[in-house]
């Protein structure tokens, strides 16, 4: 009998320990990221940690995991105070964390990743013995994965399952999940969380879930703790709380859901026509295989999909960052190759994802970045001369209108926060009076509620002016809220199309998963 298997069988009989965080404070220089927060994770419960971006959720769990040392406060296991100096210490106490982004090595197999994550493995790996142990482990695991598969070839849902399997393989009794479903389809998310929930109910695990999806919280979670601006903002049992209560705890005030007002445009004309576009990924494999799409004026067309199904490449083709291998793009009925002259002529504007990387020159000032579309035309230029006064004045005007928080127009744009970089790009792309076509990709990724609302209202307002909008997003709620028509992209092809009024949530989820 293998000793590793024996240990796992005896260990499964006891409950996970009770984890208490008591009056924890963490300061980074002047900034108090976490202020006297306490939390209790009872054995065998599913606990959610809620809060807006920057509320201190990540700081809290990183203190528990030993990535950060708290300024004050303590962590207790079954009422015993313990210091956790490193993630390795945390593993010794049976705490494991699943991160928002995958932490498996893509070029390795499932088996190699599992063996690699163990801190106390032997220097030499006896693959025959390891495979025996791993096969035995897979027999008892809540989900199964092929051990010899290369991780890079797994679907997103399977990768996330591997992350969780790793923690089970390490015999973690307390699992911290940091927005584990952000890259999964609704169906995959329900499956993964449901299987974890079974383990929790069976008393094998306690789970602390960081999430902002109320749907998941109400479906799977027993108790919640809410943080707001680094402080404890409330806690309770999910069955005693409504979604409105939880939202109020997170925001600090009651908020009415933002109203979406759409004006109807009587005679839509096709603005963007994508005809049989093919394009390759960076590694030369085909990412988009022949898509056709028309976007009319005064219409928002949403493209849903799990990241990595070709949407990034499609946006890059439309933005002129990638060359299509076949097919053509028409704007206003003319062939469009995304040259600067054509962009100006057809008034095409783009809000790409990762705006600092894709739409800004990081070391240039906010004013210069705001002028990237207009610096070579009157009034910002005269012949080949740039006129800095009008550039600066235009920047000051935009900074005011779009409420960009920057010390001065001369500050390098890379010094701004993510939300303000996004506002800078938004200001540049949406300030023109004569927009004809707007292409937006994940415009709200990583922004807080207020910024998201603001960007949504700007996009809607643009649409109501008669602009054709193509919105690519991984956030289904955003697409369902804004779009007039929704499509699903899966493995480089459109797998679903429907007007928003008759869109079927379940069918969208299925098409995203490629069924």
């Amino acid at each position, binding site marked *: 009998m293998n000793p590793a298997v024996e240990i796992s069988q005896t260990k499964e009989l006891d409950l996970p320990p009770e984890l208490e965080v008591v009056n924890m404070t963490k300061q980074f220089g002047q900034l108090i990221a976490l202020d006297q927060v306490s939390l209790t994770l009872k054995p065998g419960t599913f606990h959610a940690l809620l809060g807006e971006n920057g509320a201190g959720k990540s700081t809290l769990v990183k203190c528990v995991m030993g990535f950060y040392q708290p300024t004050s406060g303590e962590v207790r296991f079954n009422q015993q105070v313990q210091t956790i100096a490193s993630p390795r210490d945390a593993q010794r106490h049976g705490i494991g964390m699943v991160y928002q982004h995958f932490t498996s090595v893509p070029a390795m197999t499932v088996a190699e990743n599992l063996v*690699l994550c163990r801190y106390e493995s032997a220097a030499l790996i006896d693959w025959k013995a390891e495979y025996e142990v791993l096969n035995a482990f897979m027999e008892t695991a809540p989900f199964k994965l092929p051990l010899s598969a290369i991780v890079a070839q797994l679907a997103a849902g399977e990768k996330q399952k591997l992350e969780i399997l790793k923690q089970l393989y390490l015999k973690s009794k307390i699992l911290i999940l940091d927005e584990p479903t952000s890259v999964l389809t609704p169906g995959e998310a329900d499956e993964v969380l449901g299987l974890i929930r079974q383990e929790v109910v069976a008393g094998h695990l306690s789970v602390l879930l960081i999430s902002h999806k109320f749907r998941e919280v109400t479906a799977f979670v027993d108790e919640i703790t809410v943080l707001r601006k680094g402080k404890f903002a409330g806690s309770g049992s999910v069955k005693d709380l409504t979604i409105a209560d939880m939202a109020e705890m997170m925001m600090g005030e009651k908020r009415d859901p933002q109203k979406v007002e759409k004006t109807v445009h009587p005679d839509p004309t096709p603005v963007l026509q994508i005809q049989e576009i093919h394009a390759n990924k*960076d590694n*030369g494999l085909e990412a988009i295989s022949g898509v056709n799409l028309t976007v009319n004026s005064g219409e928002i067309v949403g493209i849903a999909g799990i990241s990595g199904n070709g949407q990034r490449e499609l946006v890059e083709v439309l933005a002129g960052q990638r060359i299509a291998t076949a097919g053509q793009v028409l704007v206003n009925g003319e062939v469009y190759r995304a040259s600067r002259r054509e962009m100006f002529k057809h008034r095409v504007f783009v809000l790409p994802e990762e705006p600092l990387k894709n739409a800004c020159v990081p070391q240039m000032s906010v004013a210069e970045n705001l002028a990237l579309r207009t610096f070579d035309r009157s009034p910002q230029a005269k012949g080949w001369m740039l006129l800095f006064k009008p550039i600066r004045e235009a920047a000051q005007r935009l900074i005011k209108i779009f409420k960009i928080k920057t010390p001065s127009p001369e500050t390098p744009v890379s010094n701004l926060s993510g939300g303000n970089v996004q506002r800078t790009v938004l200001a540049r792309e949406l300030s023109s009076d004569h927009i004809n076509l707007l292409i937006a990709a994940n415009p709200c990724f990583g922004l807080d509620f207020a910024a998201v609302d603001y960007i949504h209202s700007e996009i809607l307002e643009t649409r109501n002016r008669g602009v054709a909008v193509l919105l690519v997003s991984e956030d289904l709620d955003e697409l369902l809220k804004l779009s007039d028509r929704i499509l699903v992209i899966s493995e480089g092809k459109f797998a679903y199309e429907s007007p928003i009024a008759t869109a079927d949530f379940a069918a969208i989820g299925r098409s995203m998963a490629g069924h």
Partner: protein
Amino acid sequence: MATEALGWWGVPLGIMAGMLRGSAPFLFVSLGECLTEKSGKVNLGLEGTLLTGAMSAYAISYLTEKSVGPAISPWLGVLVAGLAGMVLGFIHAWLSQQPKVNDVAVGIAMIIFGSGIAFFLGKPFIQPPAPQLPTFDLGAWSNVPQIQSALKISPLLIIGILLAPLMAWFFKSTRWGLFIRAVGDSPDAALAMGISIAKVRMLCIIAGSFLAGIGGAYLSLYYPGSWSERISSGQGLMAVALVIFARWNPIQCLWASLLFGGAQAIGPALQAVGVEGGYYLFNASPYILTLLIMIITCSPKKTLTGAPGALGTFT
């Protein structure tokens, strides 16, 4: 003359002899670079390391001949060449892991530094003969002198040939090997596992430079077998290109090294059978091969398969 007796057979024989004689420096440097790049760093400075290794091996072999005897002194030279490589590797590792420092820029600086220090310290050793490394004469069965000389094999080459599968096994079946691949492919994942990226890369660069230093010792103590400033003729840089060709696989590094060693011998082999025209052109074949490999394997439209995910990025 035996050459005439062999006729055109002399050409493939010459190329094969060149493979066995000239590929070891490529092999050691490319294995060293393979190890370094697997951890996600590029070390272009191995050209400088190769020269420093060649110079220090030769100098030590010469200087210790009297005290330890001509049998041991070249091996002492090999060891010191490796150690000298480690010192240069440490400098590269330390510099290239400073914030906002570019691997390639440091690498070029290290080429200049390594060759500069080798030329500076090596001046007194250009003339005097130093004891050479021994060889295994596997061609004793034949009475054709070309075959006899072609099958003279240095123990260093055998060590190198054994090292390639050993390194492949190391990457696959040891904990350290997995750590290195994790660091090179996905530093975030490595960090989440509590692996120190800086430490792993530091050790990989130093170990890789150790191998490159030994490659240098082979140059000055076996083939061509003396110390001069033109001894490496860019082999260190070619070996770096070779790692890309070999797709970061140690076994393929071995085959690629043999190919380059053979290419190096095309010119001399043709000359031996009396083809005089285009001698310099044929001598340039390793460089042309390098250029061709770069053109064939590089494309603006796709990334290379097999490349460590974090190679040359700032982390």
